[in-house]
């Protein structure tokens, strides 16, 4: 008799109210996707925290490599002309 459960790990995302995105809440174990959704409901919305849930197999998530973080996220650094605050000359002009 196996003492291990071998139930896969699922990541849970909760939408707390309409108009907001789903936010990662944590993970849980479940044998399949239907049970994962039910377990997520029981574990992560016991206090009205959510109106919608996503579950996704942990192993299905593709993440950026933290070791190559510098190369991956360097480009936007210093490109302050992408932000409205860069444009000083038009300060004080209404509705702009």
């Amino acid at each position: 008799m196996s003492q291990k459960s071998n139930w896969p790990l699922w990541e849970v995302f909760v939408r707390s109210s309409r108009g907001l995105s789903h936010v990662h809440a944590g993970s849980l174990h479940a044998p399949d996707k239907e049970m994962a959704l039910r377990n997520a409901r029981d574990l992560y919305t016991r206090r009205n925290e959510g109106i919608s849930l996503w579950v996704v197999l942990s192993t299905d998530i593709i993440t950026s490599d933290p070791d190559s973080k510098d190369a991956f996220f360097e480009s936007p650094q210093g490109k302050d002309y992408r932000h409205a605050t860069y444009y000083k000359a038009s300060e004080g002009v209404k509705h702009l």
Partner: protein
Amino acid sequence: MAPTTPQEPGLSAVPSYEEQQSQARFDALINDDSRVEPRDWMPEPYRKTLTRQVSQHAHSEIIGMQPEANWITRAPSLKRKSILMAKVQDEAGHGLYLYSAAETLGTDRDELNDQLLTGRAKYSSIFNYPARTWADMGAIGWLVDGAAIANQVPLCRASYGPYGRAMVRICKEESFHQRQGFEILLSLSRGTEAQKKMAQEAINRFYEPSLMMFGPPDDQSPNSAQSMAWKIKRFSNDELRQRFVGMIEEQVKVLGMTLPDPDLHFDEEKKQWIHKDLNWDEFMNVIKGNGPANAQRLEHRRKAHREGAWVREAATAYAAKQEQSEVA
């Protein structure tokens, strides 16, 4: 980062250039009060310490369900029964939030569970004391959860992101746990003589063990300094114990009860609370497994796991069949 070529014996202790770089990045995160996240490089001792601490914390929540679950079916009113059930259920939830955080460090839940069931992992020794009377539900909520909260509030800022986030969630939910315990005692303290006696006895039994929940005195807590340097811990065992004892000394007056520590007082000169000497021999003995309920607690968990094996297997088998038929 793993070396690609086997190193010569004797040279393995010298960190590679990449390791030095990674260590520097890690140190910078800690110094900046930023957070370490799951896939970041981290020193092995940091990972090990955290895995141990977070999983012990999870095990404590799971084992900690038992003394209270023991009273659900006998709760003396339906309202109390609902509250207690919700609380014990929360503890299961908190255990899962913490296992979830521990798993991000690379040890899966089956392994963590195995460590608990085989006695290799520790959990908070307070749960190895039996909950003998209904008043213990009050004392556990007020003193044990109170001590846990004092420990946990600073952990919301722990340097490891998933741990801190789990603690934020847990602290939010636990806000009712301590209050419901206090109110159980408050009702008893306003009740019959038998109820008052029950309440005082429960406080007497849980006072010392709850003070010991903060761990050994600072001068006997070898790992604390490193944990503080890593910003996992933010305050020392004694600092937190001091705060806790100061709070309950006030609160016990509202109950009209006493703490079993007649000489407890605040020393104005030293600016600290002087409480009775705690029985650290007993503490160590309970940790070693010789507390009144150690054997019972572990066997309860093992039995649930053993008796649930066929259910877990059946669900796994069903999932496999479904997957096959989806592919076909």
